[in-house]
């Protein structure tokens, strides 16, 4: 790996790490953050803070409970856990990062890594594979003639 590639890789990794290291700050932001990490359980399939069902019997109560938890200073995990105990696991808008739920988070990234591996494998295979030409294909050109065609193509397609 060249120095430039290493630098690029470090920059990309840093770029990916920044969002993971950042978090919400004050009370209102915490309420907003937690409220968007939970679902309303009135079977509307909406995020708690976005439930707009007329006469919904759950969202107001749940929002009030969330305000109380944030005011008490409960940490995020404790708050979410108390909602899970009261309303069941579907109250969380995303799988947790424990137990089998972890699989939900790992698999997409694994797919990306495997996909990258597959594409690299395909490219390597292509580069090392002998050329297969159809029977009636034009004869390949080489050397000076090839350079002339390349120059012509460049001239016609670039500037």
């Amino acid at each position, binding site marked *: 790996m060249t120095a430039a590639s290493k630098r690029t890789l470090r920059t990309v990794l840093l*770029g*990916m790490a*920044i*969002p*993971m290291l*950042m978090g*919400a*700050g004050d009370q209102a*932001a915490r309420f907003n953050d937690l409220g*968007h990490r939970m*679902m309303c359980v009135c*079977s509307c*399939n*909406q*995020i708690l803070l*976005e*439930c*707009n069902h*007329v*006469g919904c019997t759950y969202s107001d109560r749940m929002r009030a409970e969330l305000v109380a938890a944030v005011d008490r200073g409960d940490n995020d995990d404790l708050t979410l856990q108390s909602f899970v105990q009261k309303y*069941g*696991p*579907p109250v*969380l*808008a*995303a*799988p*947790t990062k424990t*137990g*089998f*739920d972890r699989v*939900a*988070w790992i*698999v*997409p*990234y694994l*797919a*990306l890594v495997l*996909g*990258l591996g*597959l*594409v690299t494998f*395909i*490219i390597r295979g*292509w*580069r090392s*594979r002998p*050329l*297969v030409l*159809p029977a009636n*294909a*034009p*004869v390949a*050109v080489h050397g000076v*003639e090839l350079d002339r*065609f390349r120059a*012509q193509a460049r001239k016609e*397609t*670039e*500037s």
Partner: protein
Amino acid sequence: MSQIGSFALLLALALTAYSFLAGILALAREGPGSARLGETARRAGIASFVIVFLAAAVLVTAAFQDNFSIAYIFHHSNRDLPAPYKFAVLWSGQEGSLLFWSLLLSAYGLVLRLRYKTDPRLFAHASIIIAAVQVFFLLLLNFAAHPFAIMQGSLPADGSGLNPLLQYPEMVIHPPMLYLGYVGFTVPFAFALAALIMRYPGEKWIHITRRWTMVTWGLLTCGIFLGMHWAYSVLGWGGYWGWDPVENASFLPWLTGTAFLHSVMMQEKRGMLKTWNMWLIFSTFMLSIFGTFLTRSGVVSSVHAFAQSSIGDWFVAFLAIIFVTCLFFYGKNRSHLLSEHKLESLVSRESSFLFNNLLLLVACFTVLWGTLFPVLSEWVQGTKVTVGPPFFNRVNIPVALLLLLLTALGPLLAWRRTSTESLKRNFRVPALGALAVAAGLIAFGMRPWKDVAYFYSLMTITLAVMVALTVISEFVRGGRVISRHTGQNLLASMVQLTRRNTRRYGGYIVHFGVIVVVIGFAGSAFNQDKEQEMGFGDKLTIGSYTLVCQSYTQDDNPNYGSEWAVMNVFKGGKQIATLNPERRFYKASQQTSTMPSIRSTVSNDLYIVYEGQNPDTGRPILRAHLNPLVMWIWVGVWIMIVGTVVAMIPNTVPVRVMAPVRVQPAPVGAGD
């Protein structure tokens, strides 16, 4: 009337089955009779369109006649339903929408069968495959989800009415667009499978398939964005995309279709990725069937889903048959799909398409995985978990950002290989421009380190600017060359450039539309909302707007009763608008719905919802959302549509490639 409809469906099934079987026999048999048999199969296919159209017309007529003896009409219409929505009855329920599927498929089949002279044998194969798909849907309609089933017991005086959420003008065009997209993927699938079955020589089939895919992709894009606009304008939660399973179902074939539209260029230009493209088209079709299955089986819960029913099993069986068929013919004829060229360099257009495909497929897999994970979780640990927006956003946004980066780089890469110097030279201006915009945004108060959403938003806008500058530089560079040769001004030269290679420059216009859309998405990081009880004269301030409640008023019509607020909107102390958020009570269905009022500008949308009355105080509650840059999404879609249309227009000046003159080698000894 129901007997006419039922008979039409049976007749359509018989005709389509005949078209399928006679088509196969005609292709399998040699001899003079086979051409005549093939012709009867083609004509039966054409006739099936007429008969399915008749069945659909009967159902719509029954809706207009308030014929509640038909159970479907009773459940989805009522006497006072406005006329345009009586058309919408056709696709508003399970049975009707399957009939609509079938109608669109037979219409696509009609076009294909009328154009058979383009390549009779290829079209005959494709026609059989379309007939096979049509047989499945007609079997469903005749035996599992009959739209003309009769009401049991005494005849009801009025129907239950159409779902209030569907009573919105866009619902008259959104489902047809979406279905045209879904169903349309049957055609490229049919051509691809036909080409594989017959080991089609040459690349003509891929040109036909690409054109159909582009049309279908364009329609699906329209359908998805109309759905988003409908959700935004009607559902009243202030957003346009909720990662609902049914929304995801429409997004899946769109992603693979997009991947195909890119990778197919490698097959056309370089004879590469033949297997990949074949499976991309197969997957796109299977995903559109899978989406239909998700919507109708009740396997995942969704606000959009049709009633749960047993037809899910039919779809599973159909999907299995499609997969096995594709696998069988692929196994049999895969030697036909060998690449003609090899990759020469990693820094090339070919590589960029490969990585583009990888990212689109990872996004597709992620959406599919997230949609199905609740089912898997319930199966493994006995507990259903929710996989909602936080999951999809977190997993998909990084992939989308990488895709944006690739969209900026891709056009700068040449086929076969690109020199590093050329890449640096062409990339310098877009990169510096994007960095300047990012610095400007930070200078104007954007704080990406404060919240991950702000960080993603800044990255999105930065990369979008980079793509925009790349696209513009491509137009300018090409335009300058023409301008030098013709003496025209730059704008006219760019128009001529586009007309000379509509596909390439139409594609760039689509890319430009995409970045306008994603800038609109980036605005959502800065959404604000506020809820307040509001009596007469009360004020609510959100962003730079102040809302003052002037009054509440009521109205009544045969279909619904409504009450709405009259809200004066002030900015900088000056009244700039009056908004009327509304609540409706639909009489037939006895359901209430909200109708937000939106003031849309280039910088933000002021979105007001009349939520109802506080049961304790009796005072009206209003919720105000301030959603930045939403208009960019709708403008971006129009640009994407324009780009798609441009890409489908034939080039005015054909691109001529000079064939190299074959010089016969002189015989040994010549000239001696």
